[in-house]
């Protein structure tokens, strides 16, 4: 037979109160910490029905709550970012010279909330939010006021942030374009064809291979109908440079298979040359 919810709540309430009365009586009868601690566990277990009796509201943790607030603020700012972008585009397309371009931002946010504590330990701080006004008045004894603000990071952090952001968002290869760095890398290869000639120095693609002082180098000839293209690994971390061939610079080996690689190297080498030409 189903038990009405109100009866169940009353029964739990009586059990809870009886347990607390028993604990009070035991507290008067004995000072034995071990006995009290043992019964304290029983009382705590029975105490777990508190939430059912009171019809407790939403439970969350302190950190989850703040994270949610932070997330909401970031989402709201992102929405504003979009609107700002759309607004700037409308300004550019229309005849509105008299309107100053603006972007919209939320510089800070303050909030105050009341809650009751749930379980607290070093890893998690439980919070309870009550829905019913009467419960809120009775149970909400704690309050939290906080202020979130925005701040520009230091310039060096922004630079690092952008690098990190690029890596996170679009995996890419950073070609080494600094002539000073390239000179250091290519210096030991002066006598090695097809990497050591002056013309090669602007046409060789160089990028970091991951390890310290390790690089990949790629070179293709534009005019060579046989489709020469090579890929090397250069290790400058030791006393002597070590150059290993990854893809031999040999037109006789499977030219059709190597054609896409050749086209890619040529395209980047062209862009690289234009980069220096433009400077």
């Amino acid at each position, binding site marked *: 037979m189903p038990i009405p919810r109100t009866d169940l709540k009353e029964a739990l309430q009586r059990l*809870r*109160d009886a347990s*607390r*009365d028993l604990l009070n009586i035991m*507290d*008067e009868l004995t*000072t034995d*910490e071990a006995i*009290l601690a043992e019964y304290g566990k029983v*009382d*705590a277990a029975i*105490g777990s029905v508190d939430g059912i*009796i*009171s019809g407790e509201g939403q439970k969350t943790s*302190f*950190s989850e709550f*703040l*994270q949610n607030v*932070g997330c909401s603020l*970031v989402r709201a*700012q*992102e929405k504003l*970012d*979009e609107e*700002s*972008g759309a607004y700037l585009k409308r300004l550019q397309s229309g005849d509105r010279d008299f309107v100053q371009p603006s*972007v919209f*931002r939320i510089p800070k946010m303050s909030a105050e909330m009341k809650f*009751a*504590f749930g379980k*607290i*330990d*070093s*890893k998690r*701080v439980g919070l309870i939010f009550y829905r019913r006004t009467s419960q809120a*008045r*009775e*149970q909400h*004894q*704690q*309050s*939290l*006021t*906080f*202020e*979130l*603000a*925005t*701040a*520009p*990071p*230091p310039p060096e*952090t*922004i630079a*690092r*942030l952008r690098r*990190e*952001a690029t890596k*996170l*968002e679009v995996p890419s290869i950073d070609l080494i374009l600094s002539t000073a760095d390239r000179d250091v890398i290519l210096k030991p290869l002066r006598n090695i064809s097809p990497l050591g000639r002056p013309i090669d120095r602007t046409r060789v693609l160089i990028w970091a291979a991951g390890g310290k002082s390790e690089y990949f180098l790629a070179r293709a000839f534009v005019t060579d109908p046989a489709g020469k293209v090579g890929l090397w690994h250069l290790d400058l971390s030791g006393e002597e440079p070590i150059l290993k061939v990854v893809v031999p610079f040999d037109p006789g080996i499977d030219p059709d298979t190597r054609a896409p690689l050749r086209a890619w190297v040529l395209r980047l080498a062209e862009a690289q040359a234009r980069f220096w030409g433009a400077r």
Partner: protein
Amino acid sequence: MQSPLFRLKSLPEKIAAVAGQVTTSSRDIVAISLERFVRMPLGWPETLFMKRVQLRWHFFFARRRTGMFFFWKKGSLEQIVLDADLDMTVVPGESFERGPSITMEGIEYCFVLPPFVRIDRTAELLASIGLPEASPSNCIVLELGPGEQDLLAIKDPRKGVDGATITYTRFGKTVRVLPERIDRQRLWRPQPFIALFEAIRAWFLGGEGDVLPIRPPPKSRQSDVWKMLLQLVSAYVQSSQAIDERQPPPDGKLELVDELGVRYDIGRFESRIILRLTPEGEIAVEDEDDPFHLRLTLSMRREPRGASALVDVRPPDFLAGGDLREAFLDALDGAPGELSSVLGAKEAEARRFLREGRDSAVVFRVRWERDKDTDVIVLDGILDGTCVVAMLRGDFSVKATNSDPPAVELLSGTLEALFVGPSQMDEPVVPKDVVGYVLQFAAEIQKWLAVVV
């Protein structure tokens, strides 16, 4: 519904757990805002950080046979409870460098004396102010007025109006403060009491007395008050450590999120406990033990080499400022007919007197029964062209509301003027309950000096 009881010794770790989460959460929020930085189309370099977090706890201490406990919300089964609150604010530190770690051993304890309490109660002084048989253990000497000339000395204040001996020294002349029987009432002359109220008011408005260094007693001799104080100090120490532990090490390699983060410190840590004490300085168990409350305040301050704990006590029922005092004065302002009648002035003049005297008015509770307070309000100002002091007494209904302060209303027909006249007037007009309040106040301060100092 009853809240779980926790052993007092577990209070610090619970508060520290919350404090530590502030740093963790702030780091999470920086990380969330970094995601926007990565996604945002327009490239505004901004990240979020937690500028200030203020936590206000309200909890209760309970005294039981097996020790002291605390719990978060008040239930009907616990009778012996002390109201307490804790205000902790976590803010970005002044420097990114981590200061020295705070430990319990590094705490310096100080007691802030009320500015008008004389602790040099020598036999010569006591003899010179008419209390030759008194000793420092059974009397208190209060310094009134701007100089050191006016003294109110009370021997055995806890014996009440019938057992205490009061002397008042003014301009070098000492008199016994005795009641006079008028119309079957015992009434006292007002000058020493008005001077004392003025001194208490000045104290409430920011006056601080000498700061005495104090030392916690050994564990075996710790009173309930010291036990609570030390656990609160421990809560501060553990909270500071929890915040420090969750911050990136100063010499380690910082992750991006740490580079953008902020180093936090505890900016404010102040706890107030409404104390009900027995004459021995223990928590009062029976209601009749104690009709008088004291508010203990513990303020922790970060010092270059550690931290200090400042302990201060004041009577919470004495109001020289704040929202509750304003609520009482508003209630009086809302009854111009009664005010006019007791002041013997026209309504407009009575209201003007109240409004002009509001800033310096004091309110104190001399009796309390559930929702009804009997309060005395002392006002000074110009009434009908004469400088006067008015001491009014009335019953007020005080009902808790969802927000502070409670709703206060003057109960019709209860307002009476105990005294309206020039402050130098020397007619016996002060009734027994006001003198009783002063004696209880003096007894509590004396008790406190014994407990803490």
